[in-house]
């Protein structure tokens, strides 16, 4: 995101090729820039140099000690480096021969065979059968470290990548070296079982292992690396939007494993347990194979012809207000867009919504009233690179948005970012927080508005910024007078001193009262929380408080600042952008404004006007269905019967419908009430785009052939429309994307080509704590909306040039003494678990995740000191919910 200025450059020669790199770069990285590859094990991108394997040796003839390891030798002016001289080859050969002394060379039965770096280096360094160092080998048996990780220690080269990524990149510190010298081996930290350690089963150690020492239990011995087709796609679980590579065996057409990939999405090579192990449901035995139609009260297998004919016959009867549609937050943008068009134009109804988390629909009030949009303002990489202070509010991001929290902890530890955690109880990130505000459950609004009031009272307001950009300040300040430090402390249960300390740290970006920058503002601070937090009653007050705090301190529209409510599901942001909300048209434009409706009517070429009255939200929809006002429903990839806070209400509502169509991968509890169930493809079986919680539009690619008779959701909709008498408008999802680009203003200029480019180069700024001073360049795919024809890369920071409505509008929240809801505010509790997502439709069908969840791996239960519970839903005991809602446990 930033390019560091004023860096000293150094010129050196590597194998006769001249290269100029920033001072402090290591020889190995410099060599890579001129296309010279040096064999190594322990060097790994984004890790500190370590120098354990001694394989990356080069000859530096301009120094006295000529042979040195290139991964830790900084460049200097006029350096002459040779990487393939006889001396170097001899030294490298010796190193590899030494590593092979105990290696069992059991390549035929080793998972890593074919992608093993020891194989490659042995070949490169000409090590052949007769090893002069040979002696009887030390042997180890397979050992299972946890449900997800196996180890075969005699294959290990002790490079320490696994230990270091676990510490530096994930922050779990679950692995360590044990013993010394020849006896040295990798083990769980303190020799404990990984199941009892802070291991979050992200699989990064397996992924980075250069040999076959750390093994993936679900991949183990089931495929060979060179038979796997690699397809890049986006994760289908949480809103972080990690890029991943699906490894598909072509002979069997099955996903064999998933890995993260360097130089792709914001996550780089990192994934979480859900991403790494959550693919088994695609091959699930209970996937729907054929359409089901209700006959004599039973759902029976049927054909597409019959099912579509029935829909085309029955649906037109319910045009208008007696019809409602529920879109899917896990569906692609194209599908949600088409669904929205279907409900609004064809069915003439505005009753459309999607499950934004915990079975709740989209909230109307909130950040949208202040900024004009409730999208998160800053991109993740921008936060990691430029923020100086991060305030995490009430969300266990380690379970809801795991990769974001892993990346954040790396940035915090390397760059010395200040971290304030406000949560009713300790979170995994609390251990590295500067300030822990442990407030009374439900007091988020009081806390944030109180902090904002404290900032105003302590004269930390960015006057010039506020004057230029914010409306309603005077009124707000007047209301803020009602907040006294003691009052806030009484309502939230946080001591006054801690409140004031936090207010100052946030307002000054952790720099202290005299840390103003040249611009007159303090270093940037940002607020991050899971959007699930604000879905309950009164949730908008939390967002008003967050917005006020950010606006008063000048922390909106700047790099490294902002207010970031992270959507729960992987395409929750996209579903909203595509207009799957009762009161919004595509592009987050209010439905009430006639001009927006007119422009859409024009774009869609409608003869009849769009219905103008805002429809019912998800909860109201189900109430109306229960009361008989809504008589037909179309549900795409959503499961309200299980997700709704009160399952009794949901099941009564769904049972009361005259006609219900459900599109899903599985026979979910919702599908049990349906008249027609249509089998849909999983995310690995279709093309499309997802919009992640940081507004990054990314491409999903088809990796598998369709399962049974299932077809992608958008194709189903096209078929339904065709049967209802409309011409066939789309033959590929790209055509729908092209229409989105022309209709939705934020998505202007987005097309398949821009999303598929190799990625924009992002320069990471090294932190002070980071010993490696080299400037790292990485590539990142996708585009942040709003994009335009001229700038398809998009905008990582929103509102840099002002707000959509000219100025932001502060909304006062009056102080209510003793109004905090206290214990039990979030109702009955279900543990939020790292190993489950949503209603568990997908995750509960992945044996590895289920086993991790049930055996109490880290982040799955409060007993492990990591999980934080959340919102009600009594029938969700097993499947957990990952919305970041908090509760007393």
């Amino acid at each position, binding site marked *: 995101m930033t390019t560091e200025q004023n860096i000293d450059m150094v010129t050196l020669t590597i194998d006769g090729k001249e290269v100029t790199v920033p001072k402090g770069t290591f020889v190995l990285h410099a060599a890579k820039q001129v296309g010279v590859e040096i064999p190594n094990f322990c060097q790994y991108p984004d890790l500190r140099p370590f120098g354990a394997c001694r394989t990356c040796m080069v000859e530096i003839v301009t120094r006295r000690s000529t042979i040195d390891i290139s991964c830790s030798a900084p460049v200097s002016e006029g350096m002459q480096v040779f990487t393939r001289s006889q001396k170097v080859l001899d030294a490298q050969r010796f190193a590899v021969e030494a590593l092979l002394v105990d290696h069992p060379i*059991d*390549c*035929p*039965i080793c998972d890593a*065979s074919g992608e093993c770096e020891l194989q490659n280096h042995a070949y490169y360094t000409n090590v052949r059968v007769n090893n002069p160092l040979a002696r009887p080998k030390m042997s180890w048996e397979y050992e299972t470290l946890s449900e997800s990780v196996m180890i075969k220690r005699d294959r290990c080269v002790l490079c320490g990548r696994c230990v270091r990524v676990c510490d530096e990149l994930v922050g779990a510190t679950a692995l360590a070296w044990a013993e010394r010298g020849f006896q040295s081996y990798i083990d769980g930290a303190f020799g404990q079982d990984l199941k009892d350690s802070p291991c979050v089963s992200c699989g990064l150690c397996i992924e980075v292992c250069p040999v076959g020492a750390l093994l993936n239990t679900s991949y*183990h*011995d*089931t*495929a*060979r690396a*060179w*038979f796997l087709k690699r397809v890049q796609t986006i994760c289908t679980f949480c809103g972080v939007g990690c890029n991943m590579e699906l490894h598909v065996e072509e*002979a*069997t057409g099955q996903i064999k494993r998933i890995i993260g990939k360097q130089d792709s999405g914001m996550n780089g090579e990192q994934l979480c347990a859900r991403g790494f192990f959550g693919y088994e449901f695609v091959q699930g035995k209970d996937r729907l194979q054929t359409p089901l139609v209700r006959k004599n009260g039973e759902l029976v297998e049927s054909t597409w012809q019959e099912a579509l004919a029935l829909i085309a016959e029955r649906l037109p009867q319910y045009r208008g207000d007696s019809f409602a549609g529920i879109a899917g937050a896990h569906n692609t943008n194209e599908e949600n867009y088409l669904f929205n068009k279907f409900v609004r134009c064809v069915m003439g109804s505005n009753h459309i919504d999607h499950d934004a988390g915990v079975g709740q629909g989209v909230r109307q009030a909130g950040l949208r009233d202040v900024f004009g949009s409730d999208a998160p303002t800053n991109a993740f990489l921008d936060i990691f690179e430029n923020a100086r202070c991060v305030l995490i509010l009430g969300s266990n991001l380690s379970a809801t948005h795991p990769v974001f929290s892993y990346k954040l902890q790396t940035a915090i530890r390397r760059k010395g970012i200040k971290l304030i955690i406000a949560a009713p109880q300790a979170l995994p990130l609390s251990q590295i927080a500067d300030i822990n505000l442990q407030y009374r459950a439900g007091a988020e609004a009081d806390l944030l508005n109180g902090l904002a009031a404290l900032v105003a009272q302590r004269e930390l307001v960015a006057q010039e910024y506020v004057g230029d950009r914010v409306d309603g300040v005077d009124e707000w300040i007047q209301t803020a007078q009602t907040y006294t430090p003691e009052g806030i402390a009484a309502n939230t249960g946080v001591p006054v001193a801690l409140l004031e300390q936090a207010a100052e740290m946030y307002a000054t970006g952790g720099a202290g009262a005299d840390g103003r920058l040249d611009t007159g503002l303090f270093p940037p601070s940002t607020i991050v929380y899971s959007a699930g937090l604000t879905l309950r009653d009164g949730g908008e007050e939390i967002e008003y408080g967050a917005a006020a705090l950010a606006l008063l301190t000048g922390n909106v529209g700047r790099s490294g600042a902002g207010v970031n409510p992270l959507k729960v599901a992987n395409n929750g942001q996209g579903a909203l952008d595509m207009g799957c909300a009762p009161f919004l048209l595509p592009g987050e434009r209010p439905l009430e404004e006639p001009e927006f409706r007119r422009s859409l009517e024009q774009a869609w070429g409608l003869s009849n006007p769009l219905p103008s009255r805002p429809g019912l939200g998800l909860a109201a929809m189900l109430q109306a269905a229960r009361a008989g006002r809504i008589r037909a429903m179309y549900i795409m990839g959503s499961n309200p019967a299980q997700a709704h806070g009160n399952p009794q209400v949901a099941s009564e509502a769904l049972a009361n419908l005259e006609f219900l169509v459900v599109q899903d991968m599985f026979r979910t509890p919702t599908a049990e009430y349906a008249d027609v169930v249509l089998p849909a493809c999983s995310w690995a079986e279709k093309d499309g785009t997802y919009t992640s919680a940081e507004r990054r539009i990314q491409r999903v690619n088809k990796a598998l052939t369709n399962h049974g008779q299932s077809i992608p959701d958008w194709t189903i909709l096209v078929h339904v429309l065709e049967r209802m008498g409309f011409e066939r408008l789309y033959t590929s999802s790209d055509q729908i994307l092209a229409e989105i680009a022309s209709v939705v203003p934020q998505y202007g200029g987005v097309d398949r080509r821009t999303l598929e480019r190799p990625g924009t180069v992002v320069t990471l700024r090294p932190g002070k704590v980071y010993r490696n001073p080299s400037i790292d360049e990485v590539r990142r795919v996708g585009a942040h909306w709003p994009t335009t024809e001229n700038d398809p890369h998009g905008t990582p920071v929103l509102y840099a040039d002002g707000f959509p409505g000219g100025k932001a509008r502060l909304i006062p929240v009056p102080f209510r003494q003793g109004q905090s809801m206290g214990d039990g505010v979030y109702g009955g509790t279900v543990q939020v678990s790292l190993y489950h997502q949503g209603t568990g439709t997908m995750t509960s069908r992945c044996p590895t995740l289920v086993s991790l969840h049930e055996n109490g791996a880290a982040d799955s239960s409060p007993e492990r000191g990591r999980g934080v519970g959340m919102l009600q839903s009594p029938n969700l005991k097993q499947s957990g919910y990952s919305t970041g809602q908090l509760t007393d446990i």
Partner: protein
Amino acid sequence: MSLIDRFRGFYVTLGEGFKSPTTVQYPKEHRDMGHRFRGLPVLVTDVSTGEEKCTACGLCATACPNNVISMTSEPHATKGRHPVTYTIQAPRCLFCGLCVESCPVKAIQMSHVFELATTDRNNLLYDKEKLLELGRGIYDEIEQTESGAWLEVTRFPEEAVTR
């Protein structure tokens, strides 16, 4: 052409007539194939365990120029890994022997089976059970050569019988 030449001819006929015939009455009889004859590649059973030797490493499938071989694998207690399915599509096989050459555990061998003609092409799809059945009786043995060196040689069922 003299009469003596005729009798010379009859003499040869007469002489051969009392020897055992070279012609083999195929298909009633089978002739012994040469040791290096390349018939259908088959899977070899490990005599000590009674299981197939194959560890499903996939090298034969990789070496095969015609993609004749395919397999799926699972973990195994003693061998490490183990083929669940193993298929050879005989119609495409060109009997080159690269699979045998690539096998690190000598689990696949060129057998002496060559009668592959059939009325149904599905019969030409050889699965693991069929291949193991065809490979029954093939085993490895260590033998000392005339020069005194020890050599691992493959024995075929008919060789075992004649010995």
